[in-house]
């Protein structure tokens, strides 16, 4: 494949014509709809005292809590989700289709419902929570751990779906080649399969992290809204909106910029090298 014909003779290329307006107009409207609100944030931000507001301890605490819980949640999703995706993609077991459907349920139910469900299972009087409390003295709801669990619940499907797709798309003959060289199934998985689907895992982890970072409904239901322990950035934005809209704008901008920065860095690292 050479590029020279393209460069040497653009005049000779058949003209493909203008894109038709029934497609262009809605597309432009779509872009405007997505970009204008973000622009609004930038325009209305109190730039004069931005520095002071950003470094307020409450803001920093919420930011730190958000970043750390989203990261821990993503790690948990990887540990649980990658093997789950492998089972779904590479094995046959009774009820596999049902499990696959169930895994995607958190995508379609409102996060608040997810939070209620988590409370019912892990709450102090929940199905499992009561034993955790009685036997080990562990209470999960309204702690930072609850924030992480709420995020795992809503974000894991993104990772599982992404990794399962990558596994299904990977050339299985490489795994056969590894087997003929004496590799057992675990070695095949760690040394051959995993490196092959790494871009898919990376993309899934990014989606997963972004979803965890933005999580609101399940968090506020299951973990509450305590500054320092469970008040993540989205919760802080919502609270600020009630009393000081300018503070809400600042928090929103910070969240926006930090997540954009992280995603841009990771995309560079994971997605573009794929």
């Amino acid at each position, binding site marked *: 494949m050479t590029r020279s014909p393209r460069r040497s003779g653009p005049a000779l290329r058949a003209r493909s014509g203008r894109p038709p307006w029934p497609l262009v107009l809605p597309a432009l409207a779509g872009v405007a709809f997505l970009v204008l609100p973000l622009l609004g944030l930038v325009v209305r931000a109190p730039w004069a005292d931005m520095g002071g507001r950003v470094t307020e301890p409450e803001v920093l605490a919420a930011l730190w809590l958000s970043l750390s819980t989203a990261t821990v949640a993503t790690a948990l999703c990887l540990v649980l989700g990658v093997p789950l995706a492998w089972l779904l993609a590479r094995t046959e077991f009774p009820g596999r289709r049902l499990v696959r459907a169930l895994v995607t349920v958190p995508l379609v139910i409102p996060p608040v419902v997810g939070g209620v469900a988590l409370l019912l299972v892990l709450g102090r009087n929940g199905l499992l929570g009561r034993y955790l409390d009685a036997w080990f003295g562990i209470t999960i709801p309204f702690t930072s751990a609850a924030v992480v669990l709420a995020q795992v619940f809503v974000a894991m499907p993104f990772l599982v779906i992404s990794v399962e797709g990558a596994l299904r798309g990977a*050339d299985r*003959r490489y795994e056969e*080649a590894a087997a003929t*060289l004496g590799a057992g199934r675990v070695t095949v998985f760690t040394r051959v399969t995993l490196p*092959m689907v790494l871009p898919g895992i990376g993309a899934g982890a990014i989606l997963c992290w972004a979803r965890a970072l933005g999580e609101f409904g399940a968090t506020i239901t299951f973990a509450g809204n305590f500054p320092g322990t469970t008040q993540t950035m989205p919760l802080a934005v919502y609270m600020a909106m009630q009393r000081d809209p300018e503070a809400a704008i600042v928090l929103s901008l910070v969240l926006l910029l930090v997540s954009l920065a992280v995603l841009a860095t990771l995309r560079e690292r994971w997605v573009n090298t794929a």
Partner: protein
Amino acid sequence: MSVLSADLRLNRGDFALDVSLSVAAGEVLALLGPNGAGKSSALRALAGLLPLTGGHVRVDGRDHTRTPVERRPIGMVFQDYLLFQHMSALDNVAFGPRCQGESKADARARAAELLDHMDLADHARSRPRGLSGGQAQRVALARALAVRPRLLLLDEPMAALDVSTRLHVRGRLRHLLEEFDGAAVLVTHDPLDAMVLADRIAVVEGGRVVQEGAPAEVARRPRTPYVARLVGLNLFRGTADGTVVALDGGTVVRVHRAHRGPALVAFPPRAVALYRSRPDGSPRNLWELEVDGVERFGDQVRVHLTGPLDLAADISPAALAELGLVRGDSVWAGVKAAEAECYPG
């Protein structure tokens, strides 16, 4: 005693495989056949990648019919080589020894030694993407040999190479295969690969071995129309009575060696002479046939003839011009009895 003795039986819906193989130490057996004949299935069954429905696989007298892939004493070179893209050539070759429990240093030393032997020392650190087809093939071979297999399996090892490099790479592969002291089984659809690389050829058609023998034997005495086409011979089946063979279609062919009973007759297209009118002092075999088509064949022209028997004749472009043959023309075809090889059918 043979290193490999296998009886491969496989049933999958409308496809059935029933192949018996035996390969001696240091011997290279080629499974030659058209696409879908079952030769790749046979190879995958030997590797354990495809479960058998019957039969057995024995290597060095030990039964491996139910041994899982990773514990079979095999090495396999795959069609597209399937080198692990995320590892260097060296780590690809060291992968097998590592899996067999060798230390990292030992595995790498063995890999380096093998790559060095295959003139790839300079490419040890290269990623597979940066290798040429021939180099990738040798890395794949080194990777397969690194596990010290007793049975080496090669699936279409030449198919991924472009035509310009084939000649050189084929000769080199032949040389490397000669050094291997176990049994080697090679799958190919290219008769030239089979002839050059193998000591013995088994022709597989429709899931069965239809002919087996030394390359020269297969090339000279094909037993099925497929093999005859591969090696470029006209082949006819009939019943011999002395030096006269009555073909199944009713025509008669005279041959120089006497036989009795079912027989096959083969002669090369270049042994066929064409005449516009019935020649005087005729050769022993003369048939009036019709031209079915004309095509270029190397520096010759191949004329396809039909009539009481179908055959191909190779003549020079000058002769074609002189004869002025076009499709549908009537022509006399002569073959000397001495050119017609006759053998039991």
